[in-house]
């Protein structure tokens, strides 16, 4: 990381900390959702962007995380903060286990398997087998957490929206730092090597099976933690919240934000949070049509995502000249 990047990152974090005091509670709530999506997208990016395994089913892990948190709070009376690591652990395991058979699947086949996972999630959540804990079709309403008492004791007054925002921000920061270390460390190099040169990676002695399942697990863990946070923020889980469209939205998020890019997760989160609202403002008759045009437009203008476009732009500004487009030898 260059000094400039560090400075910019610190400034951005500082800005993120000030925001809840500048904007309304409703905006704070929206920003909390952006953080939630950013975590989920980072998770998906570890799998799809860095490791090259496509997933059309990450909404399922988001749902597992959300339901884990909701059921623990509702059934076991567990405090909200304690449910986050448990949701992460459950999803780590679920992702790892799903990743094991998925090892043998690539490309379209993996797309089908994960798509199937996404489609299967609502019926499973509704199933009479789980109804006693999951609330069946009715879902579970959960209580919004209040800021902890010790903050008030030291004179910091926060409303629940602000508190939840900071809670999510803290978790997001921790997860992004872990993600950064993961991706720029040995594991990340292995993941990328597997993505780009599978056979060569194997020859280099990388245990591709282990790393690929691990990527699935870690990816699911991130998305699951996001799901848990999302459930706490929204105060409600129901099967209808986690349809296949959630999975597709997440995929759209990483592609528009930028594949294999940490900052891409944030751009993607902003996109999936705000662009549907803009589409709705523009047309009540066919909001999806407007959204679709936005989607295609983004891909046209920035085929490597917002992060890729930003990189190119910064590179240009930095060197003050046009860098030639890289054209691979056929």
């Amino acid at each position, binding site marked *: 990381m260059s000094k400039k990047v560090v400075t910019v990152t610190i400034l951005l974090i500082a800005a993120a900390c000030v925001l809840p005091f500048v904007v309304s509670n409703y905006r704070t709530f929206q920003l909390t959702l952006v953080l939630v999506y950013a975590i989920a997208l980072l998770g998906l990016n570890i799998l799809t962007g860095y490791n090259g395994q496509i997933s059309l089913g990450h909404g399922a892990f988001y749902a597992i995380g959300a339901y884990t948190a909701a059921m623990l709070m509702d059934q076991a009376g567990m405090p909200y903060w304690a449910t986050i690591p448990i949701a992460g652990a459950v999803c780590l395991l679920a992702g790892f286990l799903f990743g094991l058979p998925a090892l043998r699947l690539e490309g379209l086949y993996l797309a089908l398997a994960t798509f199937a996972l996404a*489609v299967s999630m609502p019926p499973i959540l509704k199933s009479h087998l789980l109804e006693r804990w999951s609330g069946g079709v009715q879902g579970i309403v959960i209580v919004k957490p209040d800021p902890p008492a010790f903050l008030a004791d030291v004179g910091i007054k926060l409303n629940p929206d602000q508190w939840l925002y900071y809670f999510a921000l803290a978790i997001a920061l921790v997860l992004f730092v872990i993600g950064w270390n993961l991706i720029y460390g040995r594991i990340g190099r292995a993941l990328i090597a597997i993505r780009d040169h599978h056979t060569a990676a194997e020859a280099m002695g990388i245990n591709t099976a282990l790393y690929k399942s691990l990527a699935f697990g870690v990816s699911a863990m991130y998305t699951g933690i996001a799901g848990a946070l999302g459930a706490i923020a929204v105060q409600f889980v129901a099967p209808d919240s986690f349809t296949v469209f959630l999975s597709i939205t997440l995929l759209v998020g990483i*592609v528009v934000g930028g594949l294999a890019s940490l900052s891409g997760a944030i751009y993607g989160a902003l996109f999936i949070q705000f662009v549907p609202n803009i589409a709705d403002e523009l047309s009540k008759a066919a909001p999806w049509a407007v959204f679709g*045009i936005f989607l*295609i437009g983004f891909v046209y203008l920035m085929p490597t995502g917002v992060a890729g476009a930003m990189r190119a732009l910064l590179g240009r500004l930095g060197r003050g000249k046009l860098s030639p487009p890289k054209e691979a030898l056929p």
Partner: protein
Amino acid sequence: MEAVLFQVLAGLATGGIYASLALALVMIYQATHLVNFAQGEMAMFATYIAWSLLNAGVPYWAAFLLTVAFAFVFGVLIERIVIRPVENAPVLAVVVVFIGLLVILNSVAGWIFSYTIKSFPSPFPAALGIRYMSPHQVGALAVTLVVLALLYVFFRFTPLGLAMRAAAQNPVSSRLVGIRVGWMLALGWGLAAAVGAVAGMMVAPIVYLDPNMMSGILLYAFAAALLGGIDSPGGAVLGGLVVGVLENLLGAFVIGNELKLVVALVLITGVLLVRPSGFFGSVQVSRV
């Protein structure tokens, strides 16, 4: 025992629906090596065109042919206008364009034609019906088989079909033998859209026409195509029928309706784990 037979027959009828869309997926895959997630919505949209023509008093088979022609042109135009600019973008970017197309078509159809269901006529005479399969279900299955035969002949025995397969597999070499790869892609889109339009017109009398007519079917068709072997039209049809029957039997006798899809999908994925090329897909061998 009779109940089983009836469920099997009903499963074949539903499976025929999956098979017809799966054929369109195989078609586009053969031509572009991509699976177009908007294929179902394109079929739905074409079916609305047919519906409008029929409402305007055009006779059935004329409307049928006009719709197929329209769909073909529509497919070619989409490839030329929407897909061409992202030809060299990463695969996932193209997938996102497909998703964009899907939501646009779905939304525009709802906007123009509203979301109330429309009945769509069947061209088949009542004599075609057998016990527990309506004339239309039998007829639709037959049409699916005819489309299958046409596709098989097209890909196997015509130079154009061969060129399309080649263009999808190895565009560089294809250009070297003089194939206009760009047009092959456009043609593939056109033909897939045409096959999809036929599927739409065969499906609509069974499930009724509405903007979401195909969105549920897409997953089944995708599963069917992979189960049969994504580059095999025959496999796609067999895959569709198997998925239809399997789902019915699971729902009626094994696991119940609630989880039948889940279990069916687990089974299909299991088969693909053991046999990744599906029933009839070519074994993808290569020497470096």
